[in-house]
């Protein structure tokens, strides 16, 4: 279609996803969880957008809505020029071939009753015509080799692989349809550090070779910094700050981003100038009953009356990148 190089690959506008809250006894709907509450962003071709935030902030729900596993309550998702939220099931299925996902849990995300080769070939079973059946075996072995698995292990079952190898298998499956966009939902979070580093390197190589675009979800900021070109910070269903990687880590202007950064453990704290540690108090607010105005105000040390009344928009502040805080300012070290 109108897939020219300059328009974004993925464009999300004012996306909302809600889940009904049911009473335990009668299963009556008693309210709604706003898991994603008005998120907009663009994903450029070939870039990696990192998505960070605490658990429950809506990262997975956002990803699952983009890929069509959850239904959007409102808003639009435009992929490669096609509007998906209003697309027909057939159109959706076609578009889905171009968007694939790598899951967090390398144990539950692979069908335990299929061999590695069958797992990789399943996509071709579903979309006949992509790869002729006679080529499945060879193509599957190529893919396994591509992600660093021994092709002779194609007949093994998932439980015969280690966690890191399973994650590679999940990556191979996601690549089988030659997608344009790959969503990595905590794809390395469950792995040990040494294995995590191996998988991060693999993802970087694949991006360079295949021109992939990544939406990379993680809660580990060091990992996100390592892989991302741009970073979006989510809090309670909203994006509160969005900027180039350098900007987010050097010049965060939203208090939540600043707190998040200051909480990241540093391997050798003694080798650095002492950092100002911002210790947040309190908990993430319940998404069923978010605070009025700025959702962060219940934990924000800078909150004032205005924060409870007016919801801050995600817009450029201080002449810098977009940040959703009325009182956005650079961290003390920069002032």
């Amino acid at each position, binding site marked *: 279609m109108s897939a020219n190089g300059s328009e974004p690959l993925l464009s999300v506008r004012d996306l909302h996803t809600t889940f009904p809250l049911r009473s335990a006894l009668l299963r009556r709907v008693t309210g709604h969880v706003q898991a994603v509450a008005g998120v907009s962003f663009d994903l450029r071709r070939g870039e990696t957008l990192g998505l960070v935030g605490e658990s429950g902030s809506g990262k997975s729900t956002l990803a699952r809505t983009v890929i069509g596993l959850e239904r959007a309550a409102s808003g639009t998702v435009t992929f490669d020029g096609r509007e998906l939220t209003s697309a027909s099931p057939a159109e959706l299925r076609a578009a889905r071939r171009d968007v694939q996902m790598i899951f967090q849990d390398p144990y539950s995300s692979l069908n335990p009753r299929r061999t590695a080769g069958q797992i990789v070939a399943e996509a071709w079973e579903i979309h006949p015509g992509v790869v002729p059946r006679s080529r499945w075996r060879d193509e599957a072995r190529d893919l396994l080799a591509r992600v660093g698995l021994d092709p002779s292990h194609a007949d093994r079952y998932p439980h015969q692989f280690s966690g890191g190898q399973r994650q590679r298998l999940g990556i191979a499956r996601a690549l089988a349809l030659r997608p344009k966009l790959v969503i990595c939902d905590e794809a390395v979070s469950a792995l040990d550090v040494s294995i995590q580093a191996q998988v991060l390197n693999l993802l970087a190589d694949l991006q360079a070779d295949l021109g992939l675009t990544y939406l990379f979800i993680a809660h580990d900021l*060091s990992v996100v910094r*390592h892989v991302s070109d741009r970073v979006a910070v989510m809090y309670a269903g909203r994006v509160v700050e969005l900027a180039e990687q350098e900007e987010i880590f050097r010049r965060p202007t939203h208090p939540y981003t600043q707190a998040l950064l200051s909480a990241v453990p540093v*391997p*050798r704290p003694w080798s650095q100038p002492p950092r100002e540690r911002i210790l947040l108090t309190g908990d993430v607010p319940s998404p069923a009953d978010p605070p009025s105005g700025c959702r962060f105000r219940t934990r924000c040390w800078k909150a004032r009356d205005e924060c409870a009344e007016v919801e801050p928009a995600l817009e450029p502040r201080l002449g810098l990148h977009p940040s959703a805080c009325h009182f956005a300012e650079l961290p003390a070290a920069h002032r």
Partner: protein
Amino acid sequence: MTESPLLSVRDLSVRFRTGGGHVRAVDGVSFDVRRGETLAVLGESGSGKSVTAQAVMGILPKPAGEIAGGTIVYDGRDLLAEDPNRVRRLRGDEIAMVFQDPLSSLNPVFRVGWQIGEMFRRHRGASRRAARAAAVELMERVGIPAAARRVDDFPHQFSGGMRQRIMIAMALALRPRLLIADEPTTALDVTVQAQIMRLLADLRREEGMALVLITHDLGVVADVADRALLMYAGRAVETGGIREVYDHAAHPYTRGLMASIPDLDGPRERLTPVRGAPPNLLALPSGCSFHPRCPHATDRCRADDPVLRAVDGRPAEHRAACHHAEEVVAGERERV
């Protein structure tokens, strides 16, 4: 250093019976925990950190797991030789443990105040009223806001971080002299993790207790630990003061772990992970069990099993189980 350590573990071996044979999940591990200090036990999944802690606490899964050798001496008393009943009481009173998953270690059907108070009722014979008051006090102590109001809530009404605070409150109830925390923050978000680590550090200082912090995350403990013990495939491979170990790692595995961690500052270089994967404990490689992954491995490594020993030119306390520790410290480039 004349003072005897609070906990002294020598040559501890733990094995599990499995279908494929006996697995030595912990193999000849020795370490000391001094009074009031914090020891970080580090290593990747399956390296034997939790099993070591379970052995000290006497909570190895039975009958699969058993202590196959070694001694565990707490405050001059050999826990493996003494009367089991007295040891059990000691473990309740003086040695306490906090687990990774705070939801599954709290009983969902009892109010948290009751569960904390239970410690006082059972071990100290306190009245219900006194136990409840003590529970509120403890909940305040671990930073639960409006403790008096929340003492009658159930575990599921608390967030993950709050539940971990409650677990810590229970562990602290009897003012233990040794607290073992097994991945106390792994299930928590970074912001909450920072709160809990701060809480543990503060409590340790104020109570003067010794702390064993088990984690796979080298960054989390750097701030609070005094010494580190690194484990690999059931062995202790390096130990020493935490700054010494982090800055002058003498074991290639420790180096590899450090190099695998992406940095928050500094240039974004390609990571240099440890290659390969941890070994199958049922079929450990010959000699040094790290040799298939080690960039420094030589023929000697494939034949001889290195013992934990002092590293020439480093403080005596810094020990590593590597034939080539000196070269590793010297930062010799990897021979690939």
